[in-house]
């Protein structure tokens, strides 16, 4: 079923808007819609305005931005690598960014300047992507890339645990869990200002690649013949992914599988060209993560669920279905 591009984008935007409004309406404290509207228009009580503007709004903005970044990164990586399983968490990029973030916070580097945290997270992501391209960039089988990604990701997870265990923090176990599974609990506008610039740059660099990605479906030689500068395309793609995912992970932890699920849900609705799924994947990612974040708040549990738990439950079946398809080719 192929939808006209504008109607797909309009439908996804509507879904995202609904998710964002729901995210503002629900939380640990029950506030009536009337009270929230009063707070939003500026003549509400103090409690309602603090909850709306200081707690729920930054959380919603981050869910939208981080979700969009992860969805887009998944779509771009799948297009560029021509691998249906490629996405930031499967390739270890998110975990490597988390390692950079952990190093920035626990060794006190983040106190030097607010930019150090996203910078180190971006650095971690970049190193992992470079490692990945070096290890498996030219491989014939798409599974080689996934295996290399698992190796890079496992190494980053081990590094994160090691860094936290070495830091003089007795609460390391709890912190490791948050970094590796991701959470948007207790985020403030400070976090929004850290993540948003990175995500904006990352999004711009990835959307720029649409033509090159389409050309690459014909193979590298054909793409070059069509005038694609492969080196520049690769640089933009790697830098855009690293900066965007780095900024997202720096404030939200490594949330898995968003970049895997969303492009696969979007693709059947489009003409399947890599460029056609980029923007819809970003909007869809924003909707998905906002809904998942709403889920962790609504599902009753003693401690709030981690976001990565919800996205893994959604994402692993998609991953397995595609893995099974790959197996037929063996």
């Amino acid at each position, binding site marked *: 079923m192929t939808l006209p591009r504008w109607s797909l984008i309009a439908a996804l935007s509507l879904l995202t808007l609904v998710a964002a409004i729901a995210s503002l309406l629900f939380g640990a*404290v029950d506030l009536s819609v009337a009270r929230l509207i009063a707070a939003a228009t500026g003549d509400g009580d103090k409690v309602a305005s603090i909850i709306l503007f*200081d707690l729920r709004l930054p959380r919603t903005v981050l869910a939208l931005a981080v979700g969009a970044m992860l969805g887009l990164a998944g779509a771009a990586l799948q297009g560029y690598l021509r691998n249906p399983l490629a996405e930031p968490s499967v390739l270890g990029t998110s975990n490597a960014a988390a390692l950079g973030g952990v190093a920035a916070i626990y060794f006190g580097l983040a106190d030097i300047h607010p930019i150090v945290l996203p910078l180190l997270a971006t650095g971690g992501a970049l190193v992992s992507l470079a490692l990945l391209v070096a290890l498996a960039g030219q491989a014939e089988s798409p599974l080689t890339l996934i295996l290399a990604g698992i190796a890079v990701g496992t190494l980053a997870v081990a590094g994160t645990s090691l860094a936290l265990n070495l830091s*003089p923090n007795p*609460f390391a176990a709890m912190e490791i869990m948050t970094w590796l599974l991701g959470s948007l609990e207790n985020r403030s506008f400070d976090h929004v200002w850290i993540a948003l610039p990175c995500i904006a740059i990352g999004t711009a660099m990835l959307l720029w690649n649409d033509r090159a990605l389409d050309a690459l479906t014909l193979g590298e030689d054909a793409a070059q013949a069509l005038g694609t500068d492969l080196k520049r395309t690769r640089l933009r793609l790697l830098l855009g992914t690293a900066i965007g995912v780095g900024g997202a992970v720096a404030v939200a932890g490594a949330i898995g599988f968003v970049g895997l699920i969303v492009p696969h849900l979007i693709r059947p609705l489009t003409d399947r060209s890599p460029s056609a799924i980029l923007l819809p994947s970003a909007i869809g990612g924003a909707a998905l993560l906002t809904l998942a974040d709403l889920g962790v708040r609504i599902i009753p549990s003693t401690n709030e669920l981690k976001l990565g738990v919800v996205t893994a439950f959604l994402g692993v079946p998609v991953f397995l279905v595609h893995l099974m398809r790959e197996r037929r080719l063996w």
Partner: protein
Amino acid sequence: MPRRGLLAATALLGGAGLLWAASPVPAAKAPAVPKRVVSINLCADQLVLALADRSQIAGLTKNATDREMSGEALAARGIPLLSNSAEQILAIEPDLVVGMPASRSAALAALPQQDYPLLDLNTANTLEEIHTSIRQTATAVGHPARGDALIARMQSELAGLPKPGKGRVAAYYQRRGYMTGTGTLIDELMTRVGLVNLAGKLGKPPLSQLSLEEMVAAQPDFLIVESATDTVIDQGSEMLHHPALKDISRISVPQAWTVCGSPAYTQAARSLAEQIARIGSKAS
């Protein structure tokens, strides 16, 4: 600096739960003045340091010199620190082991043939229970008069302590949103300076978790935090610095004074009263 407030608090709560099951102390009789006293509990460390001669102390827990956790950290310097291992205790051959309670120690359970004299202290959740622990420890280390003197000093320090809280509501808010409830030393301290514990008002258990939204909705007059969380060191402490809490007056107390029922109780009470009074005068 290690910050183990929550862990210590949880351990204390767990210890309190186990107490009812503790059997009466069997064990050998301690000499009138023991010469090799070993403490196997952070809270017992502080009592032993305050009441025994330095030369009597043969070993303390590994956290005894941690200024974030123990009110007697400076006094503990230079004394051997044990990592709760049976081997180390065996090598010392103590003639008194003080714990909370000592008879349930895993390290001692590993030495069933050894019949060391034990002193079982209860977790002190009130001033009265602190005094009881002081008397028991003072008698066991052979200096009962020091115990009476210490209690008298604490009482004089608390005499005339004002109650500036005037029935206002306070929440003892720890990293990751843990809140200390009623039946705890913190709760008793709040009552002593005239504050009402938010946890009691909301009917929460001794240790509960309250989200930022719930805290904002509850709007207590004061947040009491551990001074270790005054700076952001990780995500757990970052939560206490969320802008949503900026309008609630903040009182910060070192957990070294509050994590144990110890002589530092009076310091904690006076610091609370002073900080409330200071905030009160600023607001008016």
